[in-house]
């Protein structure tokens, strides 16, 4: 993946600000914050770039990025899509729904679509067993969902988002 040049130059500018300060290495967390703000998450290329620019071992950057929960190591979409895998939903075919979504969005769990719209997640019981199987997009719950319905809902959201 190539990083966006404009964003990269903004990151450069930010790093340049910290470079002349005493203990400039200590600003790596601030720089990672900046990178995440620019790219939405911390792409490996950005971490490589920062490692090189700040002369900090990549392993160290990786250690820091994975330690703090605030940092995303994978892109996060605008709309988190989660399918409930609680018992009730599972027995009512949540797996089929999940499979249909995976196929439709061409991503698997934990991944984000290329257009950055959806991130797919699994969730434990969300206490809506009466509506099983259940899918959530953002905070909104969709009950009695079927593979077909799920695909339709996502298509609608994508249309509204784009």
């Amino acid at each position, binding site marked *: 993946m190539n990083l966006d040049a404009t964003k990269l130059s903004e990151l450069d500018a930010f790093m340049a600000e910290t470079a002349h300060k005493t203990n400039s290495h200590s600003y790596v967390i601030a720089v990672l914050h900046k990178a995440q703000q620019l790219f939405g998450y911390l792409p*490996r290329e950005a*971490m*490589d*770039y920062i*490692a*090189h620019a700040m*002369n900090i*071992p*990549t*392993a*160290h*950057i*990786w*250690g820091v990025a*994975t*330690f703090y929960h605030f940092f995303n190591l994978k892109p996060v979409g605008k709309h988190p899509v989660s399918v409930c895998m609680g018992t009730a939903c599972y027995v009512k075919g949540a797996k089929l729904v999940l499979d249909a979504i995976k196929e439709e969005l061409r991503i698997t769990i934990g991944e984000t679509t290329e257009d950055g719209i959806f991130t797919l997640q699994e969730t434990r019981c969300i206490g809506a067993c009466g509506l099983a199987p259940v899918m959530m997009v953002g905070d909104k719950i969709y009950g009695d969902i079927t593979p077909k319905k799920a695909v339709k809902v996502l298509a609608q959201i994508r249309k509204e988002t784009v």
Partner: protein
Amino acid sequence: MDTTTVNIIIDGKPYAARHGQTIMQAADEHGFHIPRLCYHPRLSIEGACRVCIVEVEGAKNYVASCAFPVSEGMKIHTNTQEIRRARRDIVELILDNHPDDCHTCERDSNCELQRLAASMGIRNRHFKGEKKHYEKDLSSASVIRDPNKCILCQRCLRICSEVQGVNALSHAFRGFQTVVMPAYNLPFAESVCSTCGQCINVCPTAAFVEKNCTQELFEKLNDPSIIKVVQVAPSVRAAIGEAFALEPGRNMEGQTAAALRRLGFDYVFDTQFSADLTIMEEASEFLERFQNKDRLPLITSCSSAWMKMMEQFHPDFIPNISSCKSPMVMMGTLVKTYFAEKMKIDPAKILSVGCMCCTAKKYEAERPELRVNNMAAVDMVITTRELAWMVKSAGIDFINIHPESFDLPLGLSSGGGAIFGVTGGVMESAIRTAYEMYTGETLVDIEIGALRGFSGIREGKITMDKDEIRVAVAHGLGNASELLDIVRKNPQRYHFIEIMGCPGGCIGGGGQPYAGVNSMPLDENILKKRAEALYSIDRAKTIRRSLDNPDVQRMYKEYLGSPLSQRAHDLLHTHYAPKLPQGILPIESTVK
């Protein structure tokens, strides 16, 4: 050092300690060996494992004796029932998240955790639960990483950053999910790992082990169609005895040669022979460059971990690196050319095995540019540890075996070849030979004290005729990087530099025997004894200069011509190129 005496009480009895000592240091001096795990004398204090806890009167909690300083009147309890139980429970907690597969584990009977558990007397398990589960990383030619065995003592990542300065490893994630891994959890082979294997040396368990090829080797040794040729690195003989519970520093050269024959090798050669050859080439290369004031300082290239690190982190020094192949690869090359021709053997039928103190040699053996006539110069590399295991496994009585000599024509060596294994040894050897080549006179005082010892970076001056040659020696990759920074600031400072990737040189290599019951890995006293073994081999030889090795001279006469001849170049020299694993971007160079 502060020598103020501090009076302390350990387990009810008064003792004297020094101000600034930790409880552990003071207790050690008085015969209390407090159990410990993450502590390592060469590394920073972590206080992470909590095994070395003691009770200190007045302290609310237990204190980690590795980290806590003594103070006047301190009352310390190392062995109360309460502290014993607490320690026991801590070790059990470690075991509870550790595979219970001791019988089938590589470190069985050599494992610090196993010993610790035994000393705790853990007979019941109380806290079993979920265990971590990760994939083994088998990608590297040298080092296997098994996070399931990792107990997060952090010794590996401390040695990788504090001593070696490679920083290939970090903690990743946190809490129960903490794993030690390279950046981005990349396969080790794609990481900046230098393959030095020091992580293996310091690992208390089998979270890091070398890529073992003993089974494959046994198979080949049983194949009558193969001609099996082995070479033994200098430092193997100085350390292998430790794997058989002998005192460190015993020279086991003859036993090693004998055992290798019993294992089924047809020819047992000595890497010290090719070390002499390396000196011939490298000394000539140095003198040529010195006279032409060309690409100085010349930097040695025999340490394979150092080479990988250099290509990754210091590519600006590539022009300075000696083009000589390492002694192991020179030997392997000669085995498949000179020796094969001489013996009228099809080189394709030769299995060339290196028996090394090193894990990086496994990686080096796979470097494509070192192939000779489209064959690997060295087909397989086993470490000292692997050899020791094979000897035991084959039922060879290593201790009582009658010593034997190496085979000719690649088995005779000078003292200069022997000291290759210890830091400063290559430089010392090179000077012995270069001096004579340059001045035409014999260097009288051939033991060069300034180059011996274990301080990280050492300097020396030698006058040849009227010219002063300034040399420097560094061991351990961290010291190497430091030395290069000195050179970057002052490029004229040295003419000739020796760098060894491992602490102490090859004697402290990543493939050397695991520490014994009462010793720490990389204990400097053990390294000193191994070094002394090599120095005494040198002293015992009548031939002490590589230049005087008659078989080397004969080979030049019969086969290579002269040092730096075209043939020597084709066979004995190589080239280097910047390497860019993940995280090292192709941006000019690190020097501004």
